[in-house]
């Protein structure tokens, strides 16, 4: 994993690409271009990009787009995707109604 990380390191300037309009996070409708731009604005980790753009914060919690987002960030930073840590998975793994989560009785 990448540890010490200077956020002022020189990065190649942002160049718009033809597929920047491609929707990567379908739940929150976040595009490839938005993710690439976020990296250029200093967001180098998956938690930062997720917090900044909401990709991976929708109904599927990034189970669909997580790998794609990681790949885009890695390419922009010029590192391998395996060098980036995934964003933390959060309970519940499937959307759950308040009345079920709040029940102490076992079963809805």
């Amino acid at each position, binding site marked *: 994993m990448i540890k010490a990380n200077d956020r002022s390191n020189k990065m190649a300037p942002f160049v718009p690409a033809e597929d920047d309009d491609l929707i990567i996070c379908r739940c929150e409708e976040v595009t490839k271009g938005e993710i690439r731009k976020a990296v250029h604005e200093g*967001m180098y980790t998956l938690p930062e990009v997720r917090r900044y753009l*909401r990709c991976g914060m*929708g109904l599927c919690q990034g189970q669909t787009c997580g790998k794609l987002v990681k790949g885009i960030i890695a390419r922009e930073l010029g590192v391998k995707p395996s060098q980036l840590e995934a964003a933390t998975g*959060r309970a519940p793994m499937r959307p759950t109604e308040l*009345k079920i989560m709040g029940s102490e009785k076992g079963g809805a």
Partner: protein
Amino acid sequence: MEKAADVLIIGSGIIGCATAYYLAKKGAAVTVLEANDSIGNGGSSRNGGGVRQSGRDPRELPMVMWGIKNLWPYLDEELETNVEYTQKGNLRLGKTAAHLKTLQKLTDGAVACGLDVRMISGDEVRKINPYLSNEVIGASWCPTDGHANPLTTTLGYFKSARRLGVRFITGEPVTLIKKEKGRAHVVVTPDGTFEAEQILVAAGYETRALTEPLGIDIPMRKKKSECLVTEAEPPMFEQMLGTAEADFYGHQTKHGSFVFGGSTGLEMFGIDDGPAQRSTSLSAPCTCRGIMKYFPALSDAKIVRTWAGWTDASADGIPVIGPADGVPGLYIACGFTGHGFGIGPAAAYSIAELMTGGTPPVDMEPFRCTRFKAKI
């Protein structure tokens, strides 16, 4: 030691990022060191987003009132980031006579400080927010309170500070602050050392271990706070909500999700799982029950995510902000006790003024680190 700066900031939460931003605006060369891999990974990214004056300790009211008047309304533009600031008031709800007594006391204290906050009846509450259950018999109402998005606010300050040339280094835990000729001057990390004319420690509870060897021990405890967020729902209300009982608080965000936090009463005794900050099995269910008592209509709303974070609860419930008395060159901002987000921009602005010889907009005396005394 080529790693020199005018100011070194330890911690990249909202305080670290915003102070770096305001200092850079004044022309200072600033370096921010963050132990975690991600910027703002502590309470700044884990709180419920309240930008609130009502319900606060009167000692912090002038500072937060100043921030809400002078900084929050302009943050979107200033940071070129959508911080989702919404100033539609705060309802602090009560269901029993004892609750109303608690709320009345808080309200009286705030009114004495010049805040527009008043007690209203259950019917008046439901005029403002028709979804609240009939169990609510009254509330305190502060129309100038509100909420914002803590994630984009913290990262917005980071982005803008970085744009002004602030150097941010993540994954760089500070192990020691050293004095030179009587002044705090050198910061040690596993990778090397950094020198600066001034050092600000804004590292939440971890501040304690860094300033204690220099003779300043801030009495505080780590307390876990937990939140949850629902799927997007149609727009229902825009106020920030809290309760006298502190069983839940929250708001509906711009994209429709409800963010709610709550407390089980056992926070002070949780397991210390360090940076993992795992959610506990008790908290979300308890918060759900709290929400449903006030908002029966939300029983079918689905929770998509829960999370937890450490707050730095100071011995007297308000933060330490200012110079580390007795250690020239060292400044401290910690102990925000779970309500540091709304006051964050004003606190950071004030520290930046202090560190550059300016005049902070409010009296900083209540936040002095020397205020903690033995009882006899």
